């Protein structure tokens, strides 16, 4: 065994889970699918006193559409998202992105709530929920509260969740007619963590509602607001695309690691933006992909 000592409790209800969190405070960690947590424990990056396994809470899973909103339970597995006709129809960006998460065996265990709460900056889903303007619902001792995705990711593995709160579901506006998305990531091998990735969404056919989110670039998933503004101002023309790529310099805070330097990541961010624009605005000149030197 490589993990540091921990105790384990399998809870049957949210109330039981909240009670366990209240009793152990910062010493408790929620165990959902475990596909990030178990390796992190084995590498001794984390040393919780107790794991609170929420895998037995049946009503934390499921996908439902009501009033133009898709509600996804926190324990919904990536494989369920991948196979869901509702997700394919109403949140096609998510359907596309989950196929890039690890491999099928990982997707059979990993959960959307776990991925968001873990907040690995290289993960696909955090960037997707930013682009989708999702609302993240957490339950704590005083009830539920809703957190905008843009307020949720605070830093490296850091979120707005308190130590006494559990992420219970994600709410996403269902795709409108004419909505377009783009999703790309660059990894040395398929299935590896991305060196850089982009999730972009336009709620209509123009650039007015464009949201561009990046993952794998900095310490958290980030919206490229300046690039989106440049495209709103100039349209998806060549000039607009060039201005948007330039704006990325102020939008992003790329980091260097063993996989890629900050300069390479910034270059890749521009390449990914060009590729995304080609998907979003196939008829516009700005979608022309730049030659990669």
């Amino acid at each position, binding site marked *: 065994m490589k993990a540091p000592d921990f105790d*384990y409790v399998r809870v049957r209800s949210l109330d039981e889970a909240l009670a366990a969190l209240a009793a152990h405070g910062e010493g408790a960690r929620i165990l959902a699918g475990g596909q990030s947590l178990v*390796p992190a424990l084995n590498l001794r990056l984390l040393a919780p006193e107790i794991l609170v396994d929420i895998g037995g809470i049946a009503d934390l899973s499921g996908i439902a559409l009501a009033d133009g909103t898709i509600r996804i339970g926190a324990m919904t597995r990536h494989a369920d998202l991948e196979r869901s006709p509702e997700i394919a129809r109403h949140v096609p960006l998510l359907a596309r992105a989950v196929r890039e998460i690890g491999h099928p065996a990982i997707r059979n265990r990993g959960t959307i709530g776990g991925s968001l709460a873990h907040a690995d900056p290289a993960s696909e889903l955090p960037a997707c929920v930013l682009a989708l303007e999702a609302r993240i619902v957490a339950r704590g001792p005083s009830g539920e509260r809703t957190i905008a995705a843009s307020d949720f990711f605070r830093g490296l593995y850091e979120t707005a969740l308190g130590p006494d709160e559990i992420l219970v579901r994600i709410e996403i506006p269902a795709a409108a007619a004419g909505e377009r998305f783009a999703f790309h990531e660059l990894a040395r091998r398929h299935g590896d963590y991305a060196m850089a990735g982009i999730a972009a969404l336009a709620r209509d056919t123009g650039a007015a509602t464009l949201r561009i989110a990046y993952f794998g670039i900095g310490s958290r998933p980030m919206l490229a607001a300046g690039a989106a503004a440049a495209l709103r101002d100039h349209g998806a023309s060549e000039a607009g695309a060039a201005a948007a790529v330039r704006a990325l310099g102020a939008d992003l805070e790329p980091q260097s690691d063993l996989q890629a330097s900050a300069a390479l990541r910034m270059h890749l961010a521009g390449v990914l933006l060009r590729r995304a624009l080609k998907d979003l605005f196939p008829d516009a000149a700005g979608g022309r992909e730049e030659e990669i030197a």
Partner: protein
Amino acid sequence: MTTEITIELDINGRSETLTLDPRVTLLDALREHLGLTGTKKGCDQGQCGACTVHVDGARVLSCLTLAAQAAGRPVTTIEGLSAPGGELHPVQAAFLEHDAFQCGYCTPGQIMSAVACIREGHAGSDEEIREYMAGNLCRCGAYPHIVAAVRQAAEMAS
């Protein structure tokens, strides 16, 4: 100090009661506590697929699953795929026929993944097989034979 837990595991249709440190993974429970060494430990961090087993009929990595998480759920390992002394599972037979291994270390994981891949309906073409078997590494490089074996087993199953 860690408190041991007692769990009941359903392994290949047999009920096993184990008292374990909660840190024990399903992989270590199978190999170290139950003597089922067919499931292999490769990387122990979810990158190689050698430890693939089925839980609730779906392929999972037993190195990234705590034994406690599998309590009460049906687990199938390579030992449970066909009856001892009985006929091989069609995927096992196809691996033999196509010589889909060299050292054989990754083979149990490959076979468990292939059985699930076919059941999921992801073995329709060589390209699809490569994509949906990509989580199982073979350091000997037997991939062309593995793809051929999976394709044949998928054709027989359909």
